[in-house]
Structures are given as C-alpha cells and as structure tokens.
C-alpha cells in the first residue's frame, strides 16, 4: 500500500489537527442575541467572554426607544440612541428596547477589554483592534527617551571622570 495515499481515517485526523491548530487561544468577544418579548419589544442579551474589565457601547436604531436593563444602574449610561455598559466581572448584560420588528438586526455595538487593550465589534469573533482600546492619549510622552539617554551619558561621564 502506498503510504503517501491519504486514507479517510488520516484525513479525519488531519482535519482535527488543523482545526485544533487553527483554533485561536481564548479570545475576548461579545455576542448579541435578540429575543422578542410577548408584551412587545425586544430583550437583548450580550454574552461577554474573557473580558474581566471593559466596556460595551450599543447603538440602538433610530425609531427605537430604550426600555431598561438588568445591569446595575451605576454601570449603565444612556445618551440618545447610545447606551454604555461598564463590565466589571459580569458575563452577561441584558437590556430591553421598544421598536419595529426588524430593529433587532440593526443594533450596532463595540466592546473594549481594558486589560488586554483590545477592542472589537459586538457579534464578531474576536478583537478588531488589538492594543487600541481606550486610546485617548499618546502611549508615551515624547522626549523621555532622549532625556534618559542623555542622563545615562552624564552619569557615565561623571563616573569616568571621577575615577
């Protein structure tokens, strides 16, 4: 038997191996599910994975109205069509809104993992912009590197001259 021929069993093993190798390590994400409520409106459930401390901003479609949340009040902020949730250990965030039947599919959202410095789109598989979460300032103030290098030169010069 030609050993280079791929038998079905080998193909299965190979597929499993490829799947295992291709599977990303635990990555942060937020999934959204939308359910219609019997009394009208929707309940939106955000499932948070591997984000111990972070934030989510949801933008609910025009024509919809905010109808409340189970998330703690001091971790929720609503402004117009935007709602922000602070995530401090929670794995699920639920909120409700009123609106037309198709509105559930038009919600847009973004999340941030503050510890990992990653951000992403709610409903997508993983981080979109690693290292860019909450990037409100430049990562390092310019000028410090040359100050450090200059200080090092001065110290070395002082030490050498003193010998």
């Amino acid at each position: 038997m030609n050993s280079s021929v791929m038998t079905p069993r080998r193909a299965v093993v190979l597929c499993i191996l490829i799947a295992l190798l291709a599977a990303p390590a635990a990555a942060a994400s937020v999934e959204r599910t939308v359910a219609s409520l019997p009394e009208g409106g929707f309940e939106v459930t955000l499932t948070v994975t591997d984000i111990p401390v972070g934030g989510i901003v949801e933008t609910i479609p025009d024509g919809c109205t905010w109808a409340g949340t189970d998330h703690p009040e001091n971790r929720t902020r609503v402004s117009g069509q935007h709602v922000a949730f602070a995530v401090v250990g929670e794995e699920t965030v639920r909120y409700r809104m009123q609106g037309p039947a198709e509105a559930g599919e038009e919600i847009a959202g973004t999340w941030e993992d503050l510890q990992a410095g990653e951000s992403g789109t709610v409903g997508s598989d993983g981080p979109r912009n690693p290292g860019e979460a909450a990037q409100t300032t430049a990562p390092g103030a310019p000028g410090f590197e040359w100050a450090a290098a200059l200080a090092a030169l001065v110290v070395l010069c002082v030490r050498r001259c003193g010998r």
Partner: protein
Amino acid sequence: MTHKLLLLVCCIFLLAGTAAAETVPCDSDGDGTLTASELATAILDSLDARFMGGTVEVPSSDDLRDAAFVYEHWDGRALTITDSSGRETTLSRPLRKIAVFNSDTIEMMRSIGVESDRVVGVSKYTLEDPTYFPEYRGKANLGSTWAPDYEQAAAVRPDAVFLYATISQSSCDEIEETLSSIDPGIRFFRFDSYRPTAYADEVRTMGALLGKEEGAERFLAFHGSVMDTVAGRIASIPADERVSVYLENWDDYKSAGNGSGYDEKIGLAGGRNIFADTAVEYPAVDPEAVISRNPDVIVKIVGAGELVFGGYGDDDPAPFEEVTRAIEDRPVWDRIDAVRDGRVHVIHSDVIGGPEYFIGVAYMAKWFYPDLFPDLDPRAVHQQYLSEFQRLDYDLEEHGAFVYPV
C-alpha cells in the same frame, strides 16, 4: 558642576513622567481602594466621551488600563511585596516595561506566562541563546550583571529592573545605584529564580507582582507534583542508608560543599553528598579522598568551563559518553563502587543549575533509587516543562543533549 546640573534637569524631566504613579488610578475618593463603582464610573466616563458626545473629564487610557489591572489583580489596592533581598516595595500601578538582567528570572517569568512584550531589555546571555529565548530576539541588550550597558538600560525607560538577589550583590548594587541616579522612578526587584529553598516563594511573588497569579499556581502545581513525588518516596529511607554521591562540576575534582546549591539538590533527590562535611561551597577535592569515601553514584556536570557542549543548542550526545569514559578511566577509580557498578552519570547544567533544577532532581532521584521511581520519567517532565510552561516548539526526541546514559 555642569554635569551635575544637567543630570538634575534630566532627572526632573524623567520624574515628571512618573510623579502620578504613587496613587491608585481612578480611585476618585482617594481612600486608597479602587472600588467596582469607581472603576465603572471611570469606564462609563471614558465611553461617554469617546462614543456618546460626553464632555466630562475622563481618565487617560493608561489610567483606565492600570485601574483595570489593579482592580482585577490587587483587589483595587496598592500592592506591597517583599523580594528575595528582603526589600519591600509598594506599587499602585502594574509594571508595563520590564528590564531583566538575570536570564533565570526571564525563564521564571515565562513559566508563569508573562508576555514577552512587557520585557523591554534583557541580558546579553538571553540574547546569545536564541534557541531557548527566541521571542527576545531584537530586545535591547542590557549587557550583563558584571558589564552592564547603562545607556541601553536607560534608553528603554523601564518601570522596573530585575537583578539577582544573592549572587553578584556588589555588581547588582552598583547597577541599582547608577540607574537610580539616571531615573529615580525605576523600581528594582531582586530574585534569584534558581534556588530551591526560595523558588516557590519567588514564583508566587512574581505572579502577584506581574498579575500572573493563576499562571504561577499552575506552574507550581506542576513543579510540586515532581518535587513532592520525589520527597514523598525518599522520606522513608533512613539517613545512613541513603545513596552516597560524589558530584563534580565541569572542572575536574571540583565538588560541592556544605550549603552549596548542588549539595542541596543532592539532598532533595535523596542522596548523601560525600563532601557535605566541607565548609567551602565548591571545594577542590583530592582524588584519593573520592576513592576513600567510595561513593555509590558519581554525577558529573557539563555545559560550562572546558566542557561546553550539549544543552538546547547541541544535539550530539557523544561528548557526554567521552566524559563518562574519562571518569571511569581515572587511575584507581575502578575501585570506586559507582564506577564498578556503572553508576557514573553526566548531566547538563541547564537542567540542574538554574530554574530547571527540579528536572535534574528528578533525574538524580531516578539514578539514586531506580526501584523507587519506576514510573518517574524525567524526560517527560522536561518535555512538559518546555512545551506547556516555556511554550517552546522543541522536541527532546529530536534535539538537545542533557544526560548520559539516556
């Protein structure tokens, strides 16, 4: 005078960047504890300003990120740790930029899962070993403990510098003194990362310091499973029935005295060091003394001095065999039980001298008491260490030379 003035100006400039580092970020009431409520408010303020048109004053991205770390890893409070030199340091922010002069400490950090991108500079020895430390290629070269490159060390602006705790103390003190005078904001930490008595404590302290508590416990569970297995089985052997061992390092007739690291490791493996009564740590011994003390087992260490071969970058086991034969052929050594019984073993310093010492202890325990450890597979322990904790794609079946006989 001009130099000192210039230095003062530089230090003031550098301090300006670290002055805010003394309080827990986002602790809005200033009581020293960052609560979930304070953290949530800071997060909401930041999201509000960036996505919702809010105009409140927001914490910087660094403050938010540091606050998240302090809340998650340090219960929202500043962390005070004691390093292996006995020095207490209090931190209110995580260490983001680390410079490490000690490659044993780099290895310990990797064992607990510290990301290489937090390390901004490493020793020349780390850079000279790309097989074992591939991810540090291209990092700033800090030189060595004995010949540091201060310009490089200052240029990478580390939050913290890691140095040895108990070896080369004067060199490490000088590094601290010099770098402190360049940048007073640098924190210094002393860890040996290879001494068995301090190893578990150092791993835990490192885990807390760098936010790798879970990684530290996971690694210690693995390390403990090896050491506890050995300790548990040798515990029942009376002291006077323990295997007598002559250990020789890479220099001929250079052994290990009382209190030395190798003396300790022989004891951990259940052996009795025949030169344990020698006060000198690494005594040069008389060959006649070895013959008269007649050890049951001889352990020879290679990988340094005149015997630089084997280890991770060398797959050839032949020199190990040559060293064994040379010991067996020493004049009159055929009278020694260890030689007569074929119990001369060679081990590479990589797996007995540094953070991997527990692998060497496992090998020695099996050599000393093969009947007690039929199920202990030191090579499998070694492979698991490399694959799971060092995260290296390195197959011991194909590469490296560490012990003889295999």
